[in-house]
């Protein structure tokens, strides 16, 4: 393992091919995303679909032809040593050697890399990943590619792997949303930026585009956190003490390309290949889902990870079951369920989208959905667990309820009939204090049982609140909430479209409508000049090729559908006053007035709470000479008898009509006078 040996190998090209392929696995994620569980269990040993996460990483490395793995531990080293000693990797039959390297002093990944450099164990190109990476990639071809880059460009120090996944993909970690600019001809990374939810603007330096025939900007990538590194990487960390994480490293290299004379390349995984990092509970959930849905094949329970214990049976509806799991009559495993050995499930229990560990005892009439129960969990009769993670050895007494993203630490005992939502639970407060983490001492800890202490989650990043998906602070996606949100979305669009059901609006017109709505809402927010808005609307009109009639109709409709004006008349009035020039511009003849009235009828008709303000609205428009009396009268008299809304609306405006008629009569009489 000496450095000289490494140099010798480097010197000869032919030897290089036969070189032992090394991988460095960092067994710490240097953050507190997985608390309170991470107080007890090091993150790589957390069970993911009933096998420790580390097992997946090692299996992946072994399958992809890595021969030597260095596990780099910064804490819990003894547990890793023990784990490796008892695993199949230390058996003589194992074809991959796994050694544990300990460095207790490391606080960041940068420290770890510097330590690695000091220890000089890296001999040639190596694979760098954290122990929480799940993948099924063949690394050798990619490594070949990396070597090709290195041959062409002496400065190539790293190839970063990315997986294609569209925005909104569940397995995209919100923490890892990245924008990448790459040179398409050389695959070099030119620009790399993590996009927080707060910043909407990204500034690309001009060099990104200069002197390049083709530059790609990518936002459809999921970070895999697998890096192919040349041996120059650890020294680079040593030289630059401000590199704390790999993101620092990438940023530093890209910013100081000339000084450090290093470049970074990227590789997009083949569509059939999978890779993801379990960085948060959200990713834990997403990757579990992907494993159960077999995207990570062959790293699925029934194929690979069976060395320990009996094989899983893979049954219909993605149900995985080990033979010794006992099911009572009448219990239902709906779909996406994993049941490990020796687990006992009582009568009339219902389980869906969940993972149940070994030796669990689940009573009668229990409901479990979207949850992760680890080994030896006891759920007594009538309990209910939803969207939660329950660590090993926890006991839930009769009738307990856990919901909406509870994270329960090991060995917790919850007394009967507790109903807990959205909280962290631990068995004792000692771990919280020991840790010396100031964050936690601030938190309110409530004792709810002999062996149960609860504290609610505090959001550390305000970013997550702005996320589109409703996320529990712990990161678990609560689908039921997400769905209800979607439903409300549907309702909104539904109300807009309600009157169109009979004759659906062609797509373009709808797009146009949305465009106009956008323009207007921006206009009122940013106080834009109406002339500009008219210009915008007109260009949209040509872009979507809509008729004048439709323009008139949709402008009025958009005006009334502005988010601010959806509820109160006062808001509508404000909007109308602001956009009066626009109305004046579009509603200029009889036909336009007809469209305008139709739009009002259709929009207001869908919102009964605004019906009473309709006469006022018409009056304003009348007063501003947008609508003429004749047009209103004509509209009033052409009633569609079949539509109750139409009749009701006309009834609402009766006072106005009367007033108009009177005024008419007066003017008539005055004329006649």
């Amino acid at each position, binding site marked *: 393992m000496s450095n000289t040996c490494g140099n010798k190998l480097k010197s000869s090209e032919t030897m290089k091919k036969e070189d032992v392929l090394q991988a460095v696995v960092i067994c710490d994620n240097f953050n507190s995303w997985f608390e309170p569980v991470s107080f007890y269990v090091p993150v790589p040993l957390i069970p993911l679909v009933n096998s420790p996460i580390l097992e997946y990483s090692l299996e992946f490395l072994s399958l992809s032809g890595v021969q030597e793995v260095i596990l780099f531990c910064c804490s819990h080293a003894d547990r890793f040593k023990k784990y490796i000693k008892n695993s199949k990797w230390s058996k003589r039959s194992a074809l991959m050697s796994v050694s544990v390297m300990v460095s207790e002093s490391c606080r960041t990944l940068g420290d770890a890399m510097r330590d690695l450099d000091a220890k000089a164990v890296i001999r040639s190109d190596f694979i760098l990943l954290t122990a929480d990476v799940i993948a099924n990639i063949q690394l050798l071809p990619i490594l070949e590619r990396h070597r090709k880059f290195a041959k062409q460009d002496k400065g190539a120090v790293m190839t970063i792997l990315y997986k294609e996944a569209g925005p909104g993909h569940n397995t995209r970690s919100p923490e890892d949303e990245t924008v990448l600019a790459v040179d398409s001809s050389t695959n070099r990374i030119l620009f790399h930026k993590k996009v927080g939810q707060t910043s909407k603007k990204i500034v690309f330096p001009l060099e990104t585009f200069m002197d390049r025939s083709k530059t790609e900007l990518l936002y459809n990538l999921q970070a895999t956190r697998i890096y192919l590194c040349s041996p120059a990487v650890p020294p680079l960390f040593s030289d630059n003490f401000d590199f704390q994480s790999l993101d620092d490293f990438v940023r530093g290299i890209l910013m100081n390309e000339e000084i450090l004379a290093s470049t970074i390349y990227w590789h997009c995984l083949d569509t059939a290949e999978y890779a993801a990092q379990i960085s948060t509970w959200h990713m834990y959930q997403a990757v579990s889902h992907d494993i159960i849905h077999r995207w990570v094949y062959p790293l699925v329970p029934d194929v690979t990870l069976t060395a320990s214990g009996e094989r899983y049976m893979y*049954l219909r509806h993605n149900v995985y079951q080990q033979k010794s799991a*006992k*099911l009572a*009559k009448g219990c239902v495993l709906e779909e996406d369920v994993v049941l490990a050995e020796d687990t006992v499930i009582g009568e009339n229990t219902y389980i869906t989208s969940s993972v149940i560990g070994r030796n669990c005892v689940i009573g009668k009439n229990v409901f479990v959905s979207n949850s992760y129960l680890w080994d030896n969990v006891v759920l007594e009769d009538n309990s209910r667990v939803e969207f939660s993670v329950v660590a090993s050895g926890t006991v839930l007494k009769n009738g307990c309820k856990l919901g909406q993203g509870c994270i329960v630490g090991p060995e917790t005992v919850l007394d009967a009939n507790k109903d807990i939502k959205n909280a962290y639970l631990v068995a004792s407060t000692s771990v919280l204090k020991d840790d010396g983490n100031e964050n936690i001492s601030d938190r309110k800890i409530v004792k709810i049982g002999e062996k149960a202490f609860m504290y609610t989650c505090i959001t550390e990043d305000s970013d997550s609140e702005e996320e589109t998906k409703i996320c529990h602070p712990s990161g678990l996606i609560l689908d039921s909430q997400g769905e209800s949100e979607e439903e409300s979305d549907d309702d909104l669009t539904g109300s807009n479209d309600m009157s169109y059901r009979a004759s659906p609006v062609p797509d373009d017109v709808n797009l146009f409508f949305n465009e106009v709505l956008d323009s207007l809402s921006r206009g009122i927010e940013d106080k834009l000049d109406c002339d500009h808005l008219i210009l915008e609307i007109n260009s949209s009109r040509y872009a979507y090729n809509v008729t004048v009639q439709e323009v008139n109709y949709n402008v009025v409709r958009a005006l009334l559908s502005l988010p601010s004006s959806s509820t109160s008349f006062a808001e509508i009035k404000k909007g109308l006053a602001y956009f009066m020039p626009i109305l004046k511009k579009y509603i200029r003849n009889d036909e336009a007035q007809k469209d305008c009235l139709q739009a009002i009828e259709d929009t207001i008709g869908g919102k009964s709470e605004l019906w009473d303000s309709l006469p006022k609205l018409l009056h304003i428009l009348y007063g501003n000479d947008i609508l003429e009396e004749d047009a209103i009268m004509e509209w009033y008299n052409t009633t569609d008898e079949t539509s109750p809304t139409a009749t009701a609306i006309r009834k609402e405006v009766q006072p106005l009509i009367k007033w108009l008629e009177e005024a008419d009569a007066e003017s008539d009489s005055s004329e006649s006078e």
Partner: protein
Amino acid sequence: MEKQDIVNYFSNILEKEKDVSAGMAAIRTLLEVLKHDKSETVQELDSNLRAAGDAMRNTDYPTTAVVSGCELFSRFVTLTNLDTASFGECKTIMLQRGEFFLKKLGLSRGKIAKLANNFIVDGSRILTHSKSRVVLQAMQEAANANKRFEVFVTTSSPDSSGVEMYHELEKASIPCTLILDSAIGYVMEQVDMVMVGAEGVVESGGIINKVGSFTMAVCAKEMKKPFYVLTESFKFVRTFPLNQRDIRNDFKYPASKLLSDLSKEHPLVDYTPPAYITLLFTDLGILTPSAVSDELIKLYL
């Protein structure tokens, strides 16, 4: 042994020991005959055994298995008569081996149950006809192996043997439903497989079983459900029925009715041709219907 003794011995076994099938009882009876036999030559012994077989066939118990059992036993006798010094010695060997043979046959039901067990998967629904001890044992074993499954049993007129089966299954706390014979078509779409026993397996690989089995097999074939037969190998019988009428009358009707007008009688068994049978589970292993004739040829050729 006198004829009456033989019949008594035979019916005694069947009445006292509910768990023993007619075929087994016949073989045991023949062994008893052999024990008490005083004949001097093989020829004489053979004719004695034949007479005993005829006597048993004339009882009102299902004859098919008795016939196959007797045939097998006489075959066994002829195969055993080896070059020993005296006939008496030969008989002792025969008795010894007979006991061993019987013991082995006794184990066969367990073997079959084990084989069939693999086919009863968690959550399956099984239709069965009439009462079959081997099917019952297979189901009991599956239930003991912690498998959850549901059984439909036909009442199986005229003797309502299905009701008996139903009670046995209830006793083993296997969820089951008793259905009318005429409801076979109705439940067929809900079940995953059909499992029946057999009174006899014929040379073609088809089976002779309680009347109604053929109906069930045709229905299963039409609805593409597998039709499994669980049967011990001593029920293999050397006959080749071409159609239903071609089955021997003594198989179809109780001995007491044989002399009356058979056209007015209800047959007790029917013949299910091999085309309707998916697999046969026997103590010789899982056989396709075409493998049955092979076994029979090996034995009787």
